[in-house]
């Protein structure tokens, strides 16, 4: 049985991991179907009387200070979180893998240059940079949030990939391929890429949760994707002012965030365990 199928089997036997994966799938589905399932998240049916209503039959999770339906906004808010979380993680991992591969395969000089650059980049205070950018870029679309989070978040992946390339280059099976006369490109394609795929997948899946939290932090400060588009971050911001009188406003999006991030972390931990090269067959 191939190592990928073995990993899939290990994942499928891991109950928490499977729970995480099912939750993630459910969240994606809910976000996709949000317009069909619920009312317009921007609608303000009665700005005066329906403010900050506690949960009721009409509004299962209550209403916010602008009398909007919190359930609808929470479901719609999932879209920003998921798009940014998954999109930025994929992009960051691609960037990191590219740089890591280049550093690992190129000569000493290029390698040193790239890695010293990554060292410096790793010591940049990411949040300060992101705050500065989004403060000036007021109408930043979700794509820009994805891009900027990815561009400031690939450094660790590049280190992991470079380290695995360097150790793989010393592996006997790579020496055997060279002895057979396989070209450099052939070695990268047949022997290196399949091996760095596993750590890259793990790194991406564990990143998603952190990125979702980062995006939420930014939109809580009123940055990134801005109101009235509902994001869990700006919903919590709305709830902050009425925290003591209408705690449900901040509670619902917060719980949604926790649930989502837990789901991704469960699935990510499961992937890490399933793809662990040390795991027995």
């Amino acid at each position: 049985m191939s190592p990928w199928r073995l990993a899939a089997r290990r994942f499928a036997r891991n109950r928490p991991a499977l729970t995480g994966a099912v939750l993630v799938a459910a969240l994606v589905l809910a976000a996709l179907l949000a317009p069909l399932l619920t009312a317009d998240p921007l609608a303000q049916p009665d700005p005066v009387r329906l403010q900050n209503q506690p949960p009721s039959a009409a509004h299962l999770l209550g209403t916010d200070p602008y009398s909007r339906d919190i359930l609808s906004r929470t479901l719609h808010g999932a879209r920003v979180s998921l798009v940014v979380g998954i999109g930025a993680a994929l992009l960051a991992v691609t960037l990191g893998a590219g740089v890591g591969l280049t550093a690992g395969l190129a000569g000493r000089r290029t390698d040193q240059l790239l890695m010293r650059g990554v060292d410096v980049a790793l010591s940049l205070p990411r949040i300060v940079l992101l705050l500065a950018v989004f403060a000036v870029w007021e109408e930043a679309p979700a794509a820009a949030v994805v891009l900027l989070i990815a561009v400031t978040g690939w450094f660790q992946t590049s280190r992991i990939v470079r380290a695995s390339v360097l150790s793989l280059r010393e592996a006997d099976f790579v020496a055997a391929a060279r002895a057979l006369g396989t070209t450099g490109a052939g070695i990268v394609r047949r022997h290196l890429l399949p091996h760095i795929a596993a750590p890259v997948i793990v790194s991406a899946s564990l990143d998603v949760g952190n990125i979702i939290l980062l995006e939420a932090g930014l939109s809580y400060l009123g940055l990134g994707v801005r109101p009235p588009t509902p994001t869990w971050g700006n919903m919590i911001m709305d709830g902050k002012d009425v925290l003591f009188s209408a705690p449900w406003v901040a509670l619902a999006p917060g719980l949604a965030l926790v649930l989502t991030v837990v789901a991704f972390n469960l699935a990510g931990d499961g992937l890490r365990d399933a793809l662990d090269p040390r795991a027995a067959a």
Partner: protein
Amino acid sequence: MLRFAARRLAFAVVSVAAVVFITFLLVHAAPGEPMLGTPERALASPETMARQRTLFGLDRPLPEQFLRYARNLARGELGESFVLHRPVAAVLAEAVPNTLLLGGTALVASLLLGLAIGVVQAARHHSRTDTLLSAATLVLYSVPVFWLGLVLLLVFGERLHWLPVSGMTSAGLEDRLSSLGRAVDVARHLVLPAASLALVQAAAFARFQRSALVESLDAEYIRAARAKGLTERAVLLKHALRGALAPTLTLAGLSVPYFLAGSVLVESIFGWPGLGRVAYDAIFARDYNVITATALVSGVLVAAGNLLADVAVAIADPRVRLDQ
């Protein structure tokens, strides 16, 4: 050791310079103008604004502005805040100690708590306690720090009235308290914001520490230690923990950016007068000099964290030598 110190220092200077340069470029090259969103700006006439621009040199070409900024920086001058009309150094001098108190407390607390949880889990790994703690740390690790802050504020501040909800001291009490009383007062204000920051990071440390310990418990030297007749306690604390400590210390040193990011969020919730608030306010007011200076301070703190991590690892692991 000296060569190590020199290299690290050079590296730190380069990274801080990179931070300053990038931030400077970002805030100046981006659209928008200074003092945006402040009442002052709303009232100012175009002439006043133009005068302000000339006063701060903002009408000069960007390279010239940067050179001037760098020259001033080299002399230790951080410039003046456009909004507060005070030297930036003075603003930071008030804020930075408060953030160090908050972040330092949170870092130490989270490290101790995380280590303790990780050790307990590793000592009984695969037991029910371990599973429960794993679930707890996973959830805690997934909680947004600002939301946790709000929840703590709601529960312990508003509902239970155990702790003060805002600020660093109780207004009006400062003069009437002894110095010990003042310290207690600050400590009481510190609990909720520090807990918000610390709990999430403690979960991260615990997760990491558990897996490092479980892995090191698999090592042959652990079996050798048991074969010598050592108690499980000695095996775990002396043999396993020593080896597994170094990666956690690295993580602690590298967690400075997390605490900085967290302080921006948490300080605004609890009204803690620290660097995070200063940065937040400055960014929205386009207070260029303050933004750049906060970036500078953050860069220095991050570099210091990295350095501490390296030194801590060298102490914890004799295989790592700094003097080569």
